[in-house]
């Protein structure tokens, strides 16, 4: 659906995006993470034909940037960083303009559909300048969807929203995902990326890593389980380390951390061995790393790579 090859964007001397290649499949929710100024918005602007790449190219819905820009724009919906609504116009008027620009066949029906879905129908005839940030953001999302684009670009959809409004927007994105739409989601919110995205790309000028949230976590730290014991068991560490499927053992104050490549398969054997060795197991759980930890480590890594 989105296929980029070596996208580069320079603003004068400032290299905003460097050699970004990526592939986003149809129906996938692709998270785009990176610190401020990493080039997320610039990448989105290139992919939506708003700025021309300095180098490289990309195809969106089969249409190439710079060759079939109008078709690219017809295939994408864009939620920009700022909602960019016309404050004096009403919700219906704001959406109507976009429906017409996109050549939507039944504009009133589409406007009604999305205003209803996003719970703005009752306020449809009010000037949107008086809407709360959350309502404005929802309206801007509706605007990006009126022409039912196969690909949707969301640039920080929940930034600047209170937790409740952010949740409404996030839930809505989940609904969209169920419809098979391809979603390209820029975000600073790592929980959001973890929850919504099939895969995430971490960018800092260059694309640092692309993978599923789970693989990112495991790839960086390996997988491990934490065993909590009622009391210390002498010799336990050595006997666990001797098990063929165990990749490492670290003693903890109240038990052990055991590194395994496939806990689903090996945990039953691990538990049997622990019991056989006389351990009194209180809990056994997979150690989880948040995407946040992964992100900070990737950023530290990429800073080192640059230095």
């Amino acid at each position, binding site marked *: 659906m989105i296929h980029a090859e070596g996208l580069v964007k320079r603003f004068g001397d400032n290299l905003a995006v460097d050699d970004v290649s990526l592939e986003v499949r149809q129906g996938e929710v692709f998270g785009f993470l990176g610190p401020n100024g990493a080039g997320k918005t610039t990448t989105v602007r290139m992919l939506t034909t*708003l700025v021309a790449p300095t180098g490289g190219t990309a195809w969106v819905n089969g249409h190439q940037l710079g060759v079939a820009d*109008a078709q690219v724009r017809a295939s994408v919906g864009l939620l920009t960083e700022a909602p*960019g609504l*016309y404050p004096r*116009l009403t919700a219906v008027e704001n959406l109507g303009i*976009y429906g*017409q*620009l996109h*050549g939507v066949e039944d504009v009133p029906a589409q406007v009604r559909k999305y205003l209803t879905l996003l719970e703005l129908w009752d306020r449809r005839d009010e000037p949107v300048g008086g809407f709360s940030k959350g309502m404005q953001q929802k309206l801007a999302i509706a*605007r990006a969807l009126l022409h039912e684009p196969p690909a949707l670009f969301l640039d920080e959809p929940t930034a600047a929203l209170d937790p409740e409004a952010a949740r409404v927007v996030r839930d809505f994105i989940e609904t969209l995902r169920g419809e098979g739409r391809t979603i390209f989601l820029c975000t600073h919110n790592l929980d959001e990326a973890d929850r919504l995205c099939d895969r995430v790309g971490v960018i800092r000028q260059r694309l640092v890593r692309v993978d599923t949230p789970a693989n990112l976590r495991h790839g960086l730290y390996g997988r491990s389980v934490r065993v909590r014991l009622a009391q210390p068991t002498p010799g336990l560490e050595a006997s666990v380390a001797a098990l063929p499927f165990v990749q490492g053992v670290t003693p903890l104050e109240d038990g052990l951390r055991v590194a395994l490549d496939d806990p689903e398969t090996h945990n039953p054997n691990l538990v049997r061995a622990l019991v056989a060795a006389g351990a009194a197991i209180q809990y056994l759980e997979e150690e989880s790393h948040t995407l946040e930890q992964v992100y900070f480590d990737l950023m530290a890594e990429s800073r080192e790579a640059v230095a």
Partner: protein
Amino acid sequence: MNTGRIRVIVRKEWLDMRKNKMVLGMMFLLPLILVLMILGTAAAFRYVPEQMSDPLVPEGTPGLPPALAQMDTDDRTLAILNDQYMFYLLMIPMVLPVYIASYSIIGEKETRSLEPILATPISTAELLIGKVVGAVTPAVIAAWASFALTALGMYFLATRPVFLYLIRPIWTVGMLIHSPLFALMSASGGVIASSRLNDPRAAQQISGLLVVPLLGVSFLVLMGRVYLDTGTLLWVTPIILALNAAILWLTVRIFQRETILTRWK
């Protein structure tokens, strides 16, 4: 070029204008004041006799058009004053579109609404033409309405020769053909200027430079150095047209998508 999309932009501009008291006020106030001044002068001539002891253009001034030469002194003075006022009326379509276009673009900058618009299939030319036409039409309508009101008032307040002198071809043709052309130029100037400046007033002043040549001509006419006739007016039409086309072309050339996004902010 998709005229449907241009129409969408024009309609949006009108809709927004209707809800913008600032622009609306400007659009009505300036022409209204002018019309009141013109008609007030005519009324003064009619109801306050002998107030002009010194005729503006004495009888027997060489080069006086026959229509003026045949009038009595008061009528001639009023007719010449009317001509001078007409320049101000012609300036409505030069000044208003700059204001309207500046407001529209600076408004788009403030609301950051350009990026989502540019992400739709609209082309740069369609967007800019929509903006220009959206700014030109109300100004032209205001100018035409002012002219119509002036003519109507003159019909009742002034003598028949003065009325006929006012609606002679030079002004009717000027209003019908030239004022929209001036308005187009002015709106394009407003688009260019306000895309670089963030203050509508500054943009207006800079594009106001466009008015200077017209002011020059107007000054010459005031000094009695030039009597404009329809021939001259028709002769300059192609030049104005070419100038218009050039400015519009330039506007579209300067503002590619990326420039709009980075400059209009």
